[in-house]
């Protein structure tokens, strides 16, 4: 392998591969990136076997070939190189020679033949989606994906194609077993998109997808039961779907809520922040006491003391109190955009449903905690 590539392209591709490549892994080659020079292109590949990053950049290739070198080190080097162009050449024993300006490196690599094959993902049904829409959908669901790897069927984002009336919507759902977030969006061309059953995209893949979506522009999303493929400009992600079946989430969304309070999102967020300072570390438990026109947020901690703050809300009806993990509401307030949000309850034992007019198609469900 022998080629010249622009420093900017090399550094950009390596930067994007860093979060995919695992630092500590039982297979040393997975800490490396694969550099593959063919035709007029340099392809940079990083994978942890679940999530794969592929970036394709223009290059002047004088000798096609493949090498693998430590991803992190090569990125650190690429960032600092002095000249605009970088000359890369494969040497004996899997060494990679790098020249840029007067700087030269000979970097120890591993045999490219040992690098894992990426899955074949040709022919997967594709959907074009605006980065802005995709990033909103992810932002409003990613925080309630389970962090526990033991509940593997919850450790990802559930993606479904839904038909409502005559239009189709793309639905994202996430839950960690204590709270749930759901968002529906109408996407042009979704009707023709063949996604029969829901799929679960693993947490790490979702956060990689989010980075691409946040750049704006258009993305092409391919989904099958086994893989998701995300294409954007010179970058491609291949994500292996999470196995297991997503729980029957619709039954946990309360339908017949009777008590409804309307409140200012940002004011609520501020109150929660202040009151939860006193709450016990582990659970962040606070009590929400609803009275006519007023919400009082209270926190008691046997070691620290008590905190309370009242907030004017639009609520009429009998007074009631219910405990929650403040963190759950804080996450939600940060993800929502509505000025006013609604909290709807069946009673003190059942989950609370949160919606907002400025967050079309979105709802969240939070299970109370007993304090």
């Amino acid at each position, binding site marked *: 392998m022998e080629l010249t590539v622009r420093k900017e392209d090399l550094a950009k591709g390596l930067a994007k591969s860093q979060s995919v490549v695992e630092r500590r892994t039982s297979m040393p080659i997975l800490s490396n990136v694969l550099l593959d020079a063919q035709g007029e292109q340099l392809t940079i590949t990083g994978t942890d076997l679940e999530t794969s990053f592929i970036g394709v950049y223009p290059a002047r290739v004088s000798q096609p070939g493949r090498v693998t070198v430590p991803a992190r080190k090569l990125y650190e080097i690429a960032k600092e190189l002095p000249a605009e162009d970088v000359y890369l050449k494969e040497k004996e024993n899997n060494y990679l020679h790098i020249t840029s300006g007067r700087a030269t490196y000979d970097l120890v690599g591993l045999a490219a033949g040992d690098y894992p094959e990426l899955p074949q993902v040709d022919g997967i049904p594709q959907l074009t989606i605006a980065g802005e829409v995709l990033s909103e959908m992810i932002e409003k669901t990613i925080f309630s994906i389970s962090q*526990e790897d*033991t*509940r593997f069927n919850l450790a990802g984002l559930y993606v479904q194609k839904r038909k409502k009336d005559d239009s189709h919507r793309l639905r994202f759902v996430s*839950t960690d*077993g*204590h*709270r*749930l977030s759901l968002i529906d969006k109408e996407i042009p061309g979704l009707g023709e998109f063949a996604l029969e059953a829901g799929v679960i995209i693993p947490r790490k893949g979702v956060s990689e997808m989010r980075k691409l979506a946040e750049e704006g522009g258009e993305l092409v999303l391919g989904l099958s039961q086994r893989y998701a493929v995300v294409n954007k400009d010179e970058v491609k992600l291949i994500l292996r779907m999470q196995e297991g079946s997503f*729980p029957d989430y619709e039954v*946990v969304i309360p339908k017949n809520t009777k008590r409804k309070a309307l409140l200012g999102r940002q004011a609520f967020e501020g109150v929660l922040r202040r009151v939860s300072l006193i709450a016990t570390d582990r*659970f962040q438990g606070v009590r929400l006491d609803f009275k006519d026109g007023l919400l009082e947020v209270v926190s008691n901690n046997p070691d620290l003391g008590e905190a309370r703050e009242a907030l004017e809300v639009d609520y009429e009806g009998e007074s009631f109190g219910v405990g929650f*993990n403040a963190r759950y509401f804080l996450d939600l307030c940060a993800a929502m955009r509505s000025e006013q949000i609604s909290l709807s309850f069946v009673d003190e034992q059942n*989950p609370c449903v949160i919606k907002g007019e400025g967050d079309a198609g979105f709802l969240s*469900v939070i*299970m*109370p*905690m*007993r*304090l």
Partner: protein
Amino acid sequence: MLAHVDMDAFYAAVEVLDRPELAGAPVIVGGGARGVVSAASYPARAFGVRSAMPLFEARRRCPQGIFVPVRMERYRQMSRRVMEVLGGFSPLLEQVSVDEAYLDLRGTPVLKAGPAAAGAAIKEAVATATGLTCSVGLAPLRYLAKIASDRDKPDGLTVVADVEAFLATVTLKEVPGCGAKARERLGALGLGRLIELRALGRERLERLLGAFGLRLWDLAHGRDPAGVELEREIKSVSHEETFARDIADRAALAAHLLNLAEKVSRRLRRYGLAGRTVTLKLRHQDFRLVTRRQSLPQPSDVTQEIYQAARELLVAYAPRGPFRLIGLAVSGLEPAGGGQGGLFDRQEQAKAQALGRAEDLVCQRFGQDALRRAGGLAVLGQDTPTGHDEVGKK
């Protein structure tokens, strides 16, 4: 003034109480074909039989001994009666085991007639209510009360009026927690009595024995920060079983595990606790002890959930055995019914909880073995066949 109340040869004494013809006989309580001595009556102790001694050794030393199986349920029942009586003397009661408790008698009416009279009153009340004898030690300090109760056993009463004078008599062997290793190190310096440690100096004691050295330094000077603790924090709830014969068969091990899960979860529910971490304990034939643990998604006191987690650990443990012992512990405890509720399977959870409550009620009334899961019955004949006795008597 604190009192330490220690029942005399408790299990053996209960056996004699239930079978008066055994009075004065060398009664040895122990379980299983390879078990150990759980308790020995004083006549049996005269033959050199001691608690925790292998049964075969007890048989060798005392061939005429009367060997009876452990009837834990019955002892617990008597224990509850004893604790009720003790609770009548002071609300500050700390039960430290089935047959042992501390009482803080300060400001209580019984102490008005003096410590010796108070001790006598306690002994008499226990004997009247249960027919059992106990030994009582009274002292202004917790560890001295404990040492005192052991001085005049059985049926003893020792009052520590002058702490300094009493301290001068305390040997290191009597000091709770001062084991063979510590005594060996101190013995090498010619030290055998607690009070002699004063000459050693605080720093040297610490260098010699670490944190325990500092504790001994305090004890040697008649200082004990520990009083009677109303509620000692429970860190974990566990049960284990030593098999009559070593077991390698996974199905049989799982059945034992189910029984243990039942016991552990019942205890958790009785304490009103739920735990996050499930630990499996296995002892190999060569006495090697291994533990494996895993966390539950939510704290649990549900038999089935605890059993599932423990079983997964058992399945994942590759070495085949055979094993001498299996144990199950639940830790990471917190009050049950608190904390974050779950969105899913709420009906299943409610059912499991209702089942647990019903189970507890039945077992409270008819004994631990009155209701068992069928999966554990395969091994029922081998462990505690004594629950039925309990039911019969009621």
